């Protein structure tokens, strides 16, 4: 990688950061330069190697475990092995997304995975997200680092300006911003789509605050943009949480800012922010609608249904009595204060209730937790509440409840619409907990240091004359500090590895020491030193919260996202070159984990497998005979009629693995490539067609040759049906069809493109053009340019009946949700622009 390419992500992030600061300064609330510099330094410290040194923020060490990259040089440090879906899912879809955009087309259809998939129905590619689109300016391997840095900066900047808006001084707001921006929720899942939601949370809340409390057209524009931004986040569960937080904060702020107004006027003041959110949502409808309409047909949805049923049967309780379940609940509260008490996959393994990806997400720093608790139990309330604090309390309670899951909660949750859809049992509501802790700690810090003589004036450095600790009730504060230190000590010391107590003990003790040092140091400074007037460091100590948070959280989380060498980003191999050159319009499949699912997609090679949970479930079900288990994405069968139907030309194995005839070895290297004898084309003309019995798509698994027989949902009556053999003729005429002269029917030309398959056929009789292209309802058929009704072949593929003669057939993919979304988006754009124009002029007129 050239030095320019290595620097490019850093420069792009710098330019975007500068642009954001300019916009905020020009139109909204400024971020002081020194604060901006601190944010910049924090991001540089945490992600400098991926922004300026050409490292890649992906767990590329996972490539070492599978052919054809087992020969890659081992390097240290390595990324977490649990991050597999960053390379097997997101990286693959991002790569294809780029290719489709480069064709000058919408990314509507992904032809290189499974039997083709609706692209927009899979949010793994983070379709349309502004940060992701901006990252397309960079080399693909540099994009994850740039996106991650931008997400962190958004967390920092918008939490800061939001807290400032809510009346908190710079030191408290900086501490709160760092607590959230460096929290476990953001850093443990940095590469994932979840953190798009994490970054959107303060952005949306800031938009809500501006639109409700200020209410200019720019504020409503900001809220509309923030809403659209949030909805494009790519992770439905956390998007729902963030939007819910927006509603909670919006209601609180609307209620408190419209106090004293008549009811109708109050209601009228709520309308513009709601309209702004609706317009923002409508603008992103083309991206959202296809996903929303297809979600229930995904593998994830079916897996969720299975999970819900097992919870209803009481599988979660596991026969434990209430006392034991309560004890486990108390244990689940430990990671809020001691995130690596149960170990961590980063050092080896975790023995807690889940992996580090759940246990580590609720940690916002020991200092944050201590100050938030002091705020709740030991700080004099003056003023009674800062704006947004009551909402933060509610969010904290909800976040804590769902993260720790007291007995009975999960059982209750599966009966509640929407909430039941969460695969993590809504543990990711820890996003509320870390954000609310940051807000509550910032508010508490502000109260501690606010000058009593300055009254309720928003504190900044000039109003901090009262000295720290003045707002504390010291005996209570001492108790809180001691209790929290005791809890952390208990968390670490009472929960060692039950199988091997010595495992990771040094690492755990190091974390414990760091946390206790922070808690004891900060506690002592607040409780003891506050008595002593005349200390020289008193005024400077207002920054102590921010400093401790930055130091502690960066030490905790910096090693979670190490950059990997760019040379390890899916490097070329002769076997890959062979596949790319010879596969044509066919597909390949790796057997038993060789060339893992989606790795070929990164390299532009069509693969039957998919690791994405949003894969259409009907394809998973149809290919069940090829899989080891119902939901597994691994294919274990190398020769099956379904593989013929699905146009699989090559089967790939690890070197040394042998496959017998009829497969033929055609390449040997880092991968062994086997050619299948008779893969079918993407579109073909079968000799016979039959309507399956009611609900009888399982007959698909009984068909021996799909060249000969295709199952089809509709057979138009006609002369061919009358010429059936005697056995078949006993069935109703429209149940069977057979070609009378198969040799007179042929496909002359076949030109598949991503969302458009063009074919020329020559037919001596009416015939069925069948395909192995997944029909989700979005494929339309045109024969000689005129729309005809398509049919479903073999239970899930698109097909079309054709009249005799020579014809041009176009199969065009336009998902209805996308087109309708574009129409909605167009209307919203016109309405929004006209509304903004009216607002501007109404605002100008009085001064004219």
């Amino acid at each position: 990688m050239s030095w320019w390419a290595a620097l490019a992500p850093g420069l792009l992030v710098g330019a975007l950061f500068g642009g954001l600061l300019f916009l905020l300064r020009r139109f909204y609330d400024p971020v002081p330069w020194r604060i901006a510099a601190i944010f910049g330094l924090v991001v540089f410290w945490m992600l400098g190697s991926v922004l300026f040194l050409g490292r890649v923020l992906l767990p590329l060490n996972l490539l070492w475990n599978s052919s054809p990259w087992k020969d890659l040089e081992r390097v240290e440090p390595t990324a977490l092995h649990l991050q597999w879906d960053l390379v097997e899912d997101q990286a693959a879809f991002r790569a294809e997304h780029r290719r489709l955009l480069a064709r000058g087309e919408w990314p509507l259809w992904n032809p290189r995975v499974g039997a083709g998939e609706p692209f927009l129905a899979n949010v793994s590619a983070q379709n349309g997200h502004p940060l992701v689109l901006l990252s397309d300016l960079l080399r693909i391997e540099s994009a994850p680092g740039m996106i991650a840095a931008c997400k962190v900066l958004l967390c920092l900047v918008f939490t800061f300006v939001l807290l400032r808006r809510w009346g908190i001084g710079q030191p408290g707001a900086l501490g709160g911003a760092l607590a959230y921006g460096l929290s476990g929720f953001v850093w443990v899942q940095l590469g994932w789509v979840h953190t798009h939601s994490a970054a959107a949370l303060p952005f949306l809340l800031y938009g809500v605050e501006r639109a409700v409390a200020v209410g200019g057209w720019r504020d409503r524009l900001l809220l509309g943009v923030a809403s659209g931004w949030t909805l494009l986040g790519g992770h439905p569960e956390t998007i729902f949480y963030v939007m819910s937080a927006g509603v909670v904060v919006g209601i609180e702020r609307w209620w408190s800012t419209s106090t004293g107004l008549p009811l109708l006027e109050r209601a009228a003041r709520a309308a513009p922010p709601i309209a702004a959110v609706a317009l923002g949502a409508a603008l992103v409808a083309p991206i959202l609608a296809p996903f929303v309409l297809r979600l229930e047909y995904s593998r994830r949805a079916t897996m969720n249904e299975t999970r819900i049923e097992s919870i209803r049967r009481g599988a979660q309780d596991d026969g434990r009595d209430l006392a034991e379940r309560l004890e486990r609940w108390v244990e689940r509260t430990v990671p809020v204060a001691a995130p690596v008490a149960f170990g961590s996959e980063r050092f080896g393994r975790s023995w807690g209730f889940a992996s580090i990806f759940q246990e580590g997400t609720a940690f916002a720093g020991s200092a944050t937790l201590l100050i938030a608790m002091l705020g709740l139990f030991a700080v004099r309330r003056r003023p009674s509440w800062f704006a947004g604090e009551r909402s933060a309390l509610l969010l904290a309670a909800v976040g804590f409840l769902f993260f720790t899951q007291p007995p009975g909660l999960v059982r209750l949750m599966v009966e509640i619409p929407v909430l039941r859809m969460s695969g993590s049992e809504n543990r990711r509501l820890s996003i509320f907990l870390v954000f609310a802790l940051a807000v509550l700690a910032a508010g508490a810090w502000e109260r501690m240091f606010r000058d009593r003589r300055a009254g309720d004036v928003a504190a900044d450095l000039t109003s901090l004359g009262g000295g720290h600790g003045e707002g504390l009730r010291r005996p209570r504060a001492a108790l809180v500090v001691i209790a929290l230190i005791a809890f952390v000590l208990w968390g670490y010391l009472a929960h060692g590895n039950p199988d091997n107590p010595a495992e990771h003990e040094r690492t755990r003790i190091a974390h414990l020491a760091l946390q206790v040092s922070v808690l004891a140091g900060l506690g002592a400074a607040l409780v003891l030193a506050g008595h002593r007037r005349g200390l020289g460091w008193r005024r400077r100590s207002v920054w102590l919260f921010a400093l401790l948070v930055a130091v502690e959280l960066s030490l905790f989380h910096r090693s979670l996202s190490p950059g990997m060498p760019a040379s390890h980003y899916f490097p070329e191999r002769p076997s890959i070159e062979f596949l790319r050159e010879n596969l044509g319009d066919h597909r390949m499949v790796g057997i038993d984990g060789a060339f893992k699912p989606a790795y070929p997609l990164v390299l532009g090679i069509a693969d039957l497998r998919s690791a994405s949970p949003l894969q259409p479930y009907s394809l998973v079900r149809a290919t069940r005979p090829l899989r080891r288990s119902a939901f597994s994405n691994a294919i274990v069968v190398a020769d099956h009629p379904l593989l013929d139907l699905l146009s699989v030309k090559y089967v790939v194995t690890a070197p040394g693995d042998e496959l017998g005839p009829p497969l033929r070895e055609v390449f040997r290297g880092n991968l062994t490539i086997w050619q299948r004898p008779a893969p079918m084309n993407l579109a073909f003309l079968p000799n016979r067609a039959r309507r399956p019995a009611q609900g009888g798509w399982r007959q698909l698994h009984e068909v021996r040759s799909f060249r000969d027989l295709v199952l089809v949902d509709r057979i138009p009556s006609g002369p061919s049906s009358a010429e059936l053999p005697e056995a078949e003729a006993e069935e109703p005429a429209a149940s069977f069809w057979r070609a009378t002269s198969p040799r007179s029917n042929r496909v002359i030309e076949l030109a598949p493109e991503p969302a458009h398959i063009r074919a020329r056929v020559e037919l001596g009789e009416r015939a069925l053009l069948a395909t192995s292209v997944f029909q989700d309802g979005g494929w339309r058929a045109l024969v000689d340019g005129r729309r005809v009704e398509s049919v479903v072949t073999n239970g899930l593929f698109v097909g079309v009946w054709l009249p005799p003669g020579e014809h041009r057939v176009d199969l065009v993919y336009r998902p209805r949700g996308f087109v309708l979304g574009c129409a909605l988006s167009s209307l919203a754009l016109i309405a929004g622009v006209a509304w903004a124009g009216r607002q501007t002029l109404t605002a100008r007129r009085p001064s004219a």
Partner: protein
Amino acid sequence: MGDRVESPGGGGAAASGPGVESAVWAPWWLAFGVALPAAAGLLLSALANRLSFLACGVAVAGLAAAWLLRALRAGRGALALRALTAGGVAAVALGGLAIAEIEALTLGSAAVLGGAGVNWAPRALLITGAAQLAVSAAWLVAVRRSRRPVERRLETETETEP
């Protein structure tokens, strides 16, 4: 400060008449001149699956927005008129391009929208654009006619001043 007199080309804050009070018309200019090309570009790009339509619409919308911004700041209707005209031209051009593109592919919007049988979206855009151009032209004529007496009166007042 008294009422401003309409400068040649429209705008200003005088009493009434087309093109006189730019503020009154601005939401419509924005909607037609700025949003329509962008919206049309988006919709047509979806139907024809060509991002170039969207880029085209956004580019024209950007240009129209820049003109409008200047018009609003200067209180001049002529610039706003240009934006409106640009919107109309863009709509006509995009509609024409879309019809050419879609028909070249023999992929009518009928294929997309369930067999309506016509490429209604690009044609609707063509009609809208043409109507917008007609409105622009009528407006321009109306502005000029409404200005003439004012200009004559101004000239007379100037001549009679000491």
